[in-house]
């Protein structure tokens, strides 16, 4: 029953997507064609060049789901990068709920890689704990 509902939802999703798909590009074009006027900043941006170069590790801050710790990298006196050192891990065994592979698409077990990357895509990290740890790291760079 659940599967049938899922199939119907997906079919409906596809139909709606086809129906409305063209509108999205119209809207996006409208957005892109309306250049956002640049007004003087309402907030004074943080001064550049006020920090000492180096890397600074923040405090271990308590997020409600575990601990968070960051390292701030200062280059040419400005914040250059933020690395996440510690982040709560999920327990894989306790969260194992469904090993069933979905038939049409390929699946694989994820594994940490050593590849060097330029940028990392992940879900946004905006927790209070994250900011606290970063603030502590930056305080050391003063």
């Amino acid at each position, binding site marked *: 029953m659940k599967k049938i509902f899922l199939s119907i*939802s*997906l079919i*409906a999703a*596809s139909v*709606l*997507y086809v129906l*409305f*798909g063209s509108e*999205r590009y119209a*809207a*996006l074009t409208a*957005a*892109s064609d*309306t*250049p*956002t006027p*640049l*007004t*003087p*900043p309402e*907030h004074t*941006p943080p001064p*550049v060049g006020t920090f000492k170069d180096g890397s600074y590790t923040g405090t271990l801050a308590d997020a409600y*789901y575990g601990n968070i710790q960051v390292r701030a990298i200062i*280059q040419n006196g*400005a914040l*250059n*990068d933020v690395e996440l050192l510690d*982040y709560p891990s*999920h327990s*894989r065994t306790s*969260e*194992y*709920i*469904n090993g069933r*592979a*979905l038939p*049409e*698409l*390929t*699946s*694989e*077990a*994820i*594994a*940490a*890689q050593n*590849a*060097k*990357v*330029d*940028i*990392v*895509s*992940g*879900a*946004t*990290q*905006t927790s209070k704990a994250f*900011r606290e740890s970063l603030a502590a790291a930056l305080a050391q760079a003063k």
Partner: protein
Amino acid sequence: MKQTRLIMGMPITVQVIDPQVTVNMFDEIFSYFERVDATFSLYKSTSELSRANAGLISPQQWSNDLSTVVQLAEDTKKATCGYFDPRTPQGTYDPTGIVKGWAILNAAIMLRERGYKNFYVDAGGDIEVSGVNQSGEPWRVGIQNPFSRSETVKTVHLTKGGIATSGTYARGNHIYDPLAPDLISQNPVVSLTVIGPNVYEADRFTTAAFAMGEAGIYFVERLKGFEGYQIARNGRATFTSNFNAYTSQR
């Protein structure tokens, strides 16, 4: 040149490879994000969006930015069959799920209009890339391991377009399913990464497809020009049929 600032509660990093880039360019980009935050932050009672929600300003008084975002939010609701819905269960209007991707794309457009070709703009893990990295190769974008955030589990190579990731683990229950508001706590998916023609498209479709649970990757599979990599709670990833075109080194 590369700079990071904390705006909208998240690190925003811009790197430009083109040698003619100036510090002023970075200031302009970050000022733009500051302005977006001042307009759309729901944490600030003084933001235009908060004032609109409080009924202090009427739609006729909305700025061009707010009108555009509201229009895009309504369009996204249609394009995602209601899985992205700016109307919250609390009755407020929250289009901010698309604001980040929209702002990153606008920042990238600002850079392109100034003639820059090789750069990326990364706001909290959602990224628009252009051209090549410092080594003259496509940008190497790692997909974060949702179980261990200092690791990556995959590398994709991009020279244009956007990539965005949604997950349960970053903002608690911030992303909910408007068709079944309690679904999020049972979502078997912990992370969904979408590659699209630009970061605005990738961001809004990953937000909506993530709310669909396991069906999300099939929604992405049906989107022309999009690929996705979905990680389930059991540590298994399911990916769209042409995803691997991005994983091989070019």
